[in-house]
């Protein structure tokens, strides 16, 4: 057994606790939040852990303030995060737009519960998929990840920080209430096994620094406030120096670069899992806890001789267009189970472009989708 493996820890962890522990391991040193079910354990855990590692936790007066505070902290060089649920995620959207425009790395955890409005505060849902894409106003890129187990919450939290820092973009971790509150045995990676990406830093002296200039990756280097690189950050359209400009050329180039950096970064951002797809005639596209039900349904269907497999996006936004297009060429039918009345299925349909029928299995009752319901659809189509 290697030293690294020896230092792995085996723990019984809740999804929300795994998120907080992963954030510490990823180097997160600033958390601002506001209490909201079913995400509050993340804030509670961070309030204990951050001071232990010299970081800072603050409970703000509201969700909007929490989002603003993490962006201010990120400007000083800290890796930052906040955690919330649907109603709070709605409140944060304006400042999430600011983070996109000002290119400030940050993680927003949205533990999805039933909505709209106060809805179902402690019951699961997957109904913020489109909010994660289009929640803030204006054209913009979006990055969102959706883990399906406690260990995956850990890994995807670290990956979310990595993407946020490398691409100077806010990243949303879309966790559903089931994954957030379940406890599982997890073997945590040793410190040396965790790859961390840092934000690109300026290599030129301050007088040549362009905080919002174009680069081959589309991601400009980011200087921290207080290190001699004095510059302006604004939510207005701005030139490469960050100064407000509204000429059509500047506006167009900023918008296109913000989109391009995520398109170019897609190989580092996209991630999916394939389960028993090699011989599948039926395909399921599912994420989060619905993917767990789908896996159970696939086992039962395979026991009855039905060749069905799963394509599971871990990256929800940007969407895994290639694998879904390939699946549409391979299978006769695609089933999309979701705890909403059809959100990610709209993306699946867009990419499938009618090459095969796309079927929905939906629950909006505050209950998880039982494997039987997915199995019934599989048997109907087999």
């Amino acid at each position, binding site marked *: 057994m290697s030293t690294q493996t020896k230092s792995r820890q085996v723990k019984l962890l809740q999804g929300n606790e795994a998120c907080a522990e992963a954030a510490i391991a990823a180097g997160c*040193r*600033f958390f*601002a939040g506001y209490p909201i079910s079913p995400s509050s354990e993340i804030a509670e855990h961070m309030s204990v852990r951050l*001071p*232990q590692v*010299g970081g*800072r936790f*603050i409970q*703000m*007066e*509201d969700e*909007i*303030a*929490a*989002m*603003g*505070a*993490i*962006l*201010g*902290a*990120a*400007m*000083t*060089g*800290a890796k*930052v995060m906040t955690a919330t649920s649907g109603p709070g995620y709605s409140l944060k959207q*304006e*400042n999430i737009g*600011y983070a996109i425009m000002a290119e400030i790395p940050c993680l927003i955890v949205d533990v999805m519960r039933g909505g709209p409005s106060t809805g179902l505060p402690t019951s699961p849902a997957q109904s913020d998929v489109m909010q994660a894409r289009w929640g803030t106003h204006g054209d913009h890129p979006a990055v969102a990840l959706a883990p399906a187990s406690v260990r995956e919450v850990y890994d995807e939290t670290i990956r979310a920080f990595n993407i946020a820092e490398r691409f100077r973009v806010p990243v949303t971790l879309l966790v559903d209430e089931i994954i957030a509150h379940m406890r599982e045995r997890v073997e945590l990676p040793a410190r040396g096994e965790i790859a961390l990406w840092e934000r690109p830093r300026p290599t030129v002296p301050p007088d040549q620094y362009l905080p919002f200039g174009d680069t081959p990756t589309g991601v400009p280097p980011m200087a921290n*406030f*207080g*290190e*001699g690189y*004095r*510059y*302006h*950050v*604004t*939510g*207005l359209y701005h030139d490469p120096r960050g*100064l*407000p400009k509204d000429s059509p050329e500047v506006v167009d180039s900023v918008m296109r670069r913000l989109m391009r950096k995520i398109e170019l970064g897609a190989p580092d951002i996209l991630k999916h899992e394939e389960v028993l797809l090699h011989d599948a005639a039926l395909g399921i596209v599912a994420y989060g806890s619905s993917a767990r039900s789908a896996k159970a349904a696939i086992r039962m269907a395979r026991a009855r001789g039905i060749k069905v497999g799963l394509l599971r996006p871990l990256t929800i936004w940007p969407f895994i267009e290639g694998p879904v297009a390939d699946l549409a060429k391979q299978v006769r039918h695609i089933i999309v189970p979701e705890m909403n009345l059809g959100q990610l299925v709209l993306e699946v349909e867009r990419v499938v472009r009618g090459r095969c029928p796309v079927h929905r299995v939906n629950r909006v009752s505050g209950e998880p989708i039982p494997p039987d319901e997915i199995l019934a659809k599989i048997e109907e189509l087999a």
Partner: protein
Amino acid sequence: MFDYEKYLRLEMFPHIWCPGCGDGIVMKSLLRAIDRVGLQKDDICMVSGIGCSSRLTGYVDFNTLHTTHGRPLAFATGVKLAKPSLNVIVVTGDGDALAIGGNHFIHACRRNIDLTVLLFNNATYGMTGGQLAPTTPTGKVASTARQGSIDPPFDACKLAIAAGATYVARGTSYHSQQLDRLIEGGIKHKGFALIEILENCNTYYGRPNKISLLELLQWEKDNTVNVKAAERMTPEQLQGKIITGVLHQADRPEYVALYEEHIARVRARAGAAA
């Protein structure tokens, strides 16, 4: 002659402010105060919200953060707590701080976090064309109150004192030398410092209310009384007057310092346990 240019981003000029606006007077006062305290440009983070006065951060050569409407205090709280060595100065307007950002305002006061806040009070929403503000005097005309406002205005200083701010001062754009000292005191103060500045918007407050720029400035002079002078005046003499100067100063633990102590305690306990 004071060298303003060393603190300015000259390529950003001309500025967007109307002729006669008070914002430029206050900006110059702020730069003189910074110079007097001797702060280094790299050590200043200036944070603003949305509105005419909040455009100030684009013109000055510091680490500048022009945020969303009403939220500069939330951003500034993050900056200060994450990097206490920065001198964080917030530029905000009356609509920004007292309407859309009112919640952040009272809670930043309550924490007594070490921020210096300049609240530019022109009694209107200038950038959007003169709508009713939470500071518009009752009876005055606004583009959303054409028959005159029925709303009572906020007193920003009383609000800040009640919420727990530990340095509260009021100045005007007319009394610019007094303002230098009030801002200087705010920067030096360890804790939440508010400097409310009564200034004018002759374009969107003066014009619809048929008050000239000269009359607006004259009003700042005639209707304000320094807190020291006020002590010797009778209630009758003070009727209708607005008090300026340092209105409140208190000694109370500052938030970031308390958090640093918290970290030290947690780590000492962990060390003792290990």
